[in-house]
């Protein structure tokens, strides 16, 4: 049932924090299942996931298509509801929140980065970021967020005038501009070639290190796991393995 303690390289306490140095728990899930009812068949996207994520960690979720990574990410981000089980964000139980509560949670705490960037084509880079800074409680200025991802000079360009890598970095700027506690990235490099992908990963690492933002990255790309603090493997809606990296490499060393 429990998948969290499947540690192969090194045992990493997850059930309870140990000692004063143990980082704060950000997410905790208990027996989470998700069943999609398509009418004819029932698809078990998640089949009992127990997981704990810690503050400031960069976690990579790996696994084949349909293994449940995106479903879990959506649930953690307050975009989707569980079928069974419980999810906590700090002391708040997400599974208890109403739609309004989830909206508030996303607005205040969560930043998203998607595979297809999901920029609003009719807004410039700066305006796309402002979409978030307009409603967040304590945002950074839009230009600052864009400078963080190295796009200070492209602020007034429309998405159609930018490369894929640039668009994804705008999406990251948009996600971090609210100073979120957590950054959820679904295949952020999926649509990018290797060199632009590296730029994007570099931006993610920087954010993680500089602000201590808890970051979860879904990827198909096994190479990317080497930059993570922790790697969680998914298989058939369950966690098959969790691994903690002793040594991490810089994104620039990753090639695919």
């Amino acid at each position: 049932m429990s998948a969290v303690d499947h540690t192969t390289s090194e045992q990493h306490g997850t059930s309870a924090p140990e000692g004063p140095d143990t980082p704060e728990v950000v997410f905790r899930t208990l027996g989470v299942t998700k069943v999609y009812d398509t009418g004819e068949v029932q698809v078990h996207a998640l089949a009992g996931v127990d997981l704990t994520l810690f503050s400031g960690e960069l976690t990579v979720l790996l696994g084949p298509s349909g293994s449940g990574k995106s479903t879990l990410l959506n649930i953690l981000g307050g975009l989707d509801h569980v079928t069974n089980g419980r999810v906590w964000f700090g002391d708040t139980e997400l599974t208890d929140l109403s739609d309004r509560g989830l909206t508030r949670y996303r607005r205040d705490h969560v930043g998203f980065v998607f595979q297809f960037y999901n920029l609003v084509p009719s807004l410039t880079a700066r305006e796309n970021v402002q979409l978030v800074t307009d409603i967040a409680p304590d945002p950074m200025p839009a230009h600052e967020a864009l400078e963080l991802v190295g796009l200070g000079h492209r602020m007034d360009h429309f998405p159609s005038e930018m490369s894929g890598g640039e668009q994804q970095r705008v999406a990251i700027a948009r996600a971090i501009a609210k100073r979120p506690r957590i950054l959820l990235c679904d295949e952020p490099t999926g649509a990018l070639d290797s060199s632009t992908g590296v730029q994007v990963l570099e931006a993610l690492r920087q954010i993680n290190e500089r602000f201590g933002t808890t970051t979860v990255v879904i990827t198909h790309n096994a190479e990317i796991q080497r930059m993570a603090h922790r790697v969680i493997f998914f298989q058939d809606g369950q966690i098959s393995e969790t691994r903690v990296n002793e040594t991490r490499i810089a994104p620039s060393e990753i090639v695919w």
Partner: protein
Amino acid sequence: MRAIDRKLLRDFKRLWIQAAAIAIVMACGVAILLTSVGMYNALSETRAAYYERNRFAEVFVHARRAPQSILSEVAAIDGVLQIEARITGYAVLDIPGRIESGMGHIISLPEYGDPLLNQPLLYSGRFPDPSSRDEILVNVPFAEANNLSQGSTVSATLNGRKRELTIVGTALSPEFIYTIGPGSLMPDNETFGVLWMPHVATAAAFDMTGAFNDLSLVLTHNARTEPVIDALDDLLEPFGGLGAHDRSRQISEAFLDAELSQLKGMAMVVPPIFFAIAAFLVSMVMGRIIALERSEIGLLKAVGYSNVEVCLHYLMLAVLIGAAGVVVGWVAGFALARTTALQYAKFFDFPYVIFQVSYWIYAAAALAGLLTTSLGAARSALKAANLDPAIAMQPPAPPRFKRTIIDRIIDGMRLSQPTIMIFRSLLRWPVRSAMTSLGLAFSVATVIATSYITDAMDEIVDVAFYLSNRQDAMVLFSEDVPESAVEDVLDLPGVLVAEGQQFHAAILRNGHLEKHVSIEARHPDADLSRVVDADKRVLTAPPGGVLLATRLAEQIDAQVGDVIEAEFLTGKRETFDLTVVGLTTQHIGLGAYMDQDYLNRLFRQEPRVSTVNIEIDENRLPELHRAIKDTPEISGLIEMNDNRRSFEETIDQNVSVMNGIYIVVAILITIGVAYNGARIQLSERSRELASLRILGFGRGEVSYILVGETMFLAVLAQPAGWLIGTWIASAMTSGFTSDLYAIPLVLTPRSFALGSLVVLIAAFASAMVVRRRLDRLNLVEVMKTRE
């Protein structure tokens, strides 16, 4: 400005052509609402002010000759506040510079002081000197039409005596806002004028010293009209009273009122149709936008925008479209209302027009417009609000096509793939297809419903002038004359045929229902003026009864065979029981017809005539006019050709303006519906169409799918449009029916063809404009994008 609002403005800018197409339909509704309500208010407020300021009377009665001594009794009737007795009559006018004779309505001015009631409003010059015998005041339109000014003279044959009259001033009067002469259908200011004369001179001219024949009254604030009318009728009965009536039967007021109720009807019926079409277009466009922006909606929610904010964001887009329509509608409505006001000014003689469209009408039109577009967008906006963010971020499931019985039929028809694609898409979105078709059907109906008026008017002219009243002119006498006068008229130069006719004012009663009418009596062999029914059959009133117009019969609930009571107010003023011997459908007036010999027998009198209808040798017209001007017994000559000319001219002008406006409106609706439909289709199908191009289909073949679907819906809209058009036309027919006239429902193939042609061409043009975008489609880009 918030980024989400900036997105809103950019979306609006990007969609501007579609938005404009919708906004214009909305603008039509707003403009028509403003025009009809604005005109209605302007006319009714102007009328109210004019009536109030110039003391327009409330009760009117005409008598043969009543002594002034009874005026104190009239004033003593309970509820009477003010009275004014006058002498009125008709005169043949010899207008300088005109060959044809004109006709004057003579009205006396009080002996002392200004008129108390129905006060003429002096426009130029002065009132005549009360002691003068030849000074007159004339109505402005008559003076203008004949280039008469202060100092001009007109000679008039008053009660058999020819007199030179000098114009000392011009005026307008609340009694003659719609200035129409006796027996006319339309105002003709060249040949009909109102002449105000000093009392003494008028009394002398009409042998009315110490007497009067026309009485106007104003009642106290709370007085009821009916008892006053009854008391007046009793008092005037011995003096040839023709039946007192309130304003509703005052001829100028009756026409004005009929016009006002038409405007009111238009304000209530037409704008809602436009608003409904605009709402449908908004719902269609918004539905597509929401489908296209699925992932953006998901994103907005993912980053924390609430359902309400997302819903409002899309509603605001609709509101912007609505607002654009409202603003254009305001401007167009203001201009249109002014144009219409000028058009009305030609018809109605107001000294001033209080044209002031109040702010609340603008506000109400705006509210209606914005509410409509919001309503149209509501479903889509709610859908956006309810979209689950996790699902919204994924591409939508491809539309489900299921095989149905219709597919089997399509298979059986062995259609080409592109044609099958057209049919499948229509069947996949049946409601949208049906609504698009319905929108186009309304365009067809709009053209039919206005173009039918032309045919209806032609029909009226045809029946009234070419079948029914075929005489060239009517000779009027100051009172009924022995039938031998017909021979005298025949002796006048240029008169080829002369036929006598009697007119009697009467009250027809059936049970508690009654109606004031004019009974026409003629010989069965009369050929110039005949009774013609709606089927263009010539009818004769058989002896032994009365033939009634259907609308009259309905009003007094009489059927063939019923015996009704007829109280004659002229002639011997006797009351008879008459059998209804037939009914006839007629367009103008509420006619009642009798056999002349039968009427003479009833009255136990020698044959008499009120008018003589004549056919004239055109070449000898000047001679005839000279003779008539010098024949004292004749009080007037109504030239039917003048009448026809002015009727046809007026109708032509108005109808062609209206037709023009509504054809433009129909084109705008068609563009709104067809353009938006094709754009949405292109947006939904761009991948599909690009795939076909990649597979080797030519531009023409691919356009066929796009244009074909639009045109298929447009063709489908035709029968529905014809039906709706027929229905609107018949609703208008019953709406326009009044005591004065009924518009026949004449639907010709021409109207249907015109409606169809206008809409098919506009729809084709709209689809072709969208087709041009197809040429610019970037095949690679389209295939690469998600969705």
